[in-house]
């Protein structure tokens, strides 16, 4: 149906303002199917605003965003997981009073069936579906080494573990594009190295394309196929990690401000 020419995510001329402040000013870029794209920029550059625009939490003033060729600006927030978008949140947005397993099961909400009547009366093979769903969720938890704490209440877990739960919840939806908002925040050196593998495995084994917002340069530069750089709401550069790192305006705007630049 869709030719190779249609990008998985196509952001075109998106403009977002809050009162008089321009948060995003005509940002355009696209992510191809199977790619890992990094979105970087100094604090306040508009990265999270763009994420919230793509996931329909914020309304753009103008421009368009298409997923797989289909415009999404008419979709409600709860419609975005149906078009294949999954995401994690910068400051964690878990269901704190529920267990790890329940959080992951809710991740599968959009791709499963059921309603009040069928669920209250256990109709239409609901029990069988529920068992299958639980097995699937447990397998996912095992993969992310969360199976030991499947029954644990999420709010009581350490920050790093909660981040993994968020990732598991997003994967449980089986998205085509996974948006990760600072997934490495709070991770130590070894954990970042491990996380690189996690990101690559998600793309290679699950065939999920990834859009990654991250402050951790080393991580972005080593896993991304393509990097988009924002500054003050505008795109100032786009290209391969090598291209971006040698771009003078990027060095000026971002890398010059004391961040480490080396890519391994």
């Amino acid at each position, binding site marked *: 149906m869709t030719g190779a020419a249609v990008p998985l995510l196509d952001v075109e001329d998106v403009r977002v303002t809050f009162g008089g402040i321009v948060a995003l000013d005509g940002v355009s870029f696209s992510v191809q199917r199977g790619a890992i794209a990094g979105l970087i920029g100094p604090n306040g550059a508009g990265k999270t605003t763009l994420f919230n625009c793509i996931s329909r939490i914020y309304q753009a003033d103008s421009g368009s965003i298409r997923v797989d060729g289909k415009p999404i600006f008419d979709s409600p*927030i*709860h419609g*975005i997981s149906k078009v294949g978008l999954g995401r994690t949140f910068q400051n964690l947005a878990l269901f704190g009073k*529920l267990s790890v397993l329940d959080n992951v099961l809710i991740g599968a909400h959009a791709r499963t069936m059921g309603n*009040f009547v069928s669920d*209250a009366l256990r109709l239409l093979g609901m029990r069988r579906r529920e068992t299958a*769903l639980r097995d699937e969720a447990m397998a996912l938890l095992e993969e992310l080494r969360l199976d030991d704490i499947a029954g644990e*209440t999420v709010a009581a877990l350490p920050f790093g573990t909660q981040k993994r739960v968020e990732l598991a919840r997003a994967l449980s939806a089986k998205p085509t594009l996974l948006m990760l908002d600072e997934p490495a925040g709070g991770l130590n050196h070894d954990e970042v190295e491990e996380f690189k593998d996690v990101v690559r495995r998600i793309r290679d084994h699950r065939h999920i394309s990834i859009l990654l917002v991250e402050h951790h340069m080393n991580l972005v530069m080593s896993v991304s196929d393509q990097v988009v750089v924002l500054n003050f709401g505008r795109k100032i550069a786009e290209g391969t990690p090598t291209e971006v790192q040698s771009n003078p305006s990027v060095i000026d705007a971002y890398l010059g401000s004391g961040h480490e630049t080396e890519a391994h």
Partner: protein
Amino acid sequence: MTAETQVTAQSVDPERRIAGLTSGGWRCAATAIAILVAVVLPWTLGSFQTFQITLVLFYAIAILGLNILTGFNGQFSLGHSAFFAIGAYTTAILVERYGVSTYLTIPVAGGLGFAAGFLFGFPALRLSGLYLALATFALSVATPQLLKYNHFEDFTGGVQGINLLKDSAPFDLPFSVDQWWYYVTLAITLFAFWMARNLINSRTGRAIMAIRDNPIAAATMGVNTALYKTLTFGVSALLTAVAGALSAIVVEYVAPDSFTFVLSVYFLIGLVIGGVGWIPGAVIGGAFVLYVPNLAEGISTGLAGVLFGVIILLVIYLMPSGAAGLVRLGITHLRRRLDRDNNKA
């Protein structure tokens, strides 16, 4: 509600056996024992006590309805006396004015309650926390007045209310009227709790709780939050209206002043005492709001209200998470003790 009053999933190995039973097995056993006691109980009690435990049951259904809305979905309501009144008056009017079979009026009352709750769910979408509490409070304040309003009097019986007579047991079954209606109420209660448990442990229930914990994240996972919230309001009102219908039948009388906002507050007390977000707690809460005011009255008629207040304070102080917390604490202690014994052995 706050974290302390919430009962959350425990880290329990589902395969672990205590005295030969898994935690699921223990839950089944406890449920079976509770049902057995409930079935045998009327044979050991006089007719007035049977009548009283019937009241406990329909209070429990109403509190269960409130729990689904407040405990699991995070929407506050001080308006459940209105839904209870809708159920009670539906039954009373249909039976007395139109000669409809008493049994048939119960689902009709539930349906009307659902419709009312669902519709009220729409304005509730724009309100949260204290504002929703106020809006629902308005609903429960308006209800008795509407029921008394003289233009509706032909229908509602005005201040006098409506008297009705409950049917005796059909097919010459060997039950007294009180026993028969106790069993009918028990059957409906069991069905309601079974449905509530299914709902909470399902995809729908998880969506309901996800909205409580984080509405934006729930929407991002594909949960249509507006639809789920209004439907939850509807289901909650449905249960409370069914409880109201049963109250009309069992008490054989409806009147506007039985459905003031004080009744809503009683439901709320029952909810908190039983445990917010714990399904079986509704029965304990129902028993509390029925027996404790009577108990207080028995000690001192003049200071009944004060005593009731003091008892509530004590209970909240001693078990801040309601009966749910107490049960959980008991289980944890028991488990620790068993672990210690096992280690010694």
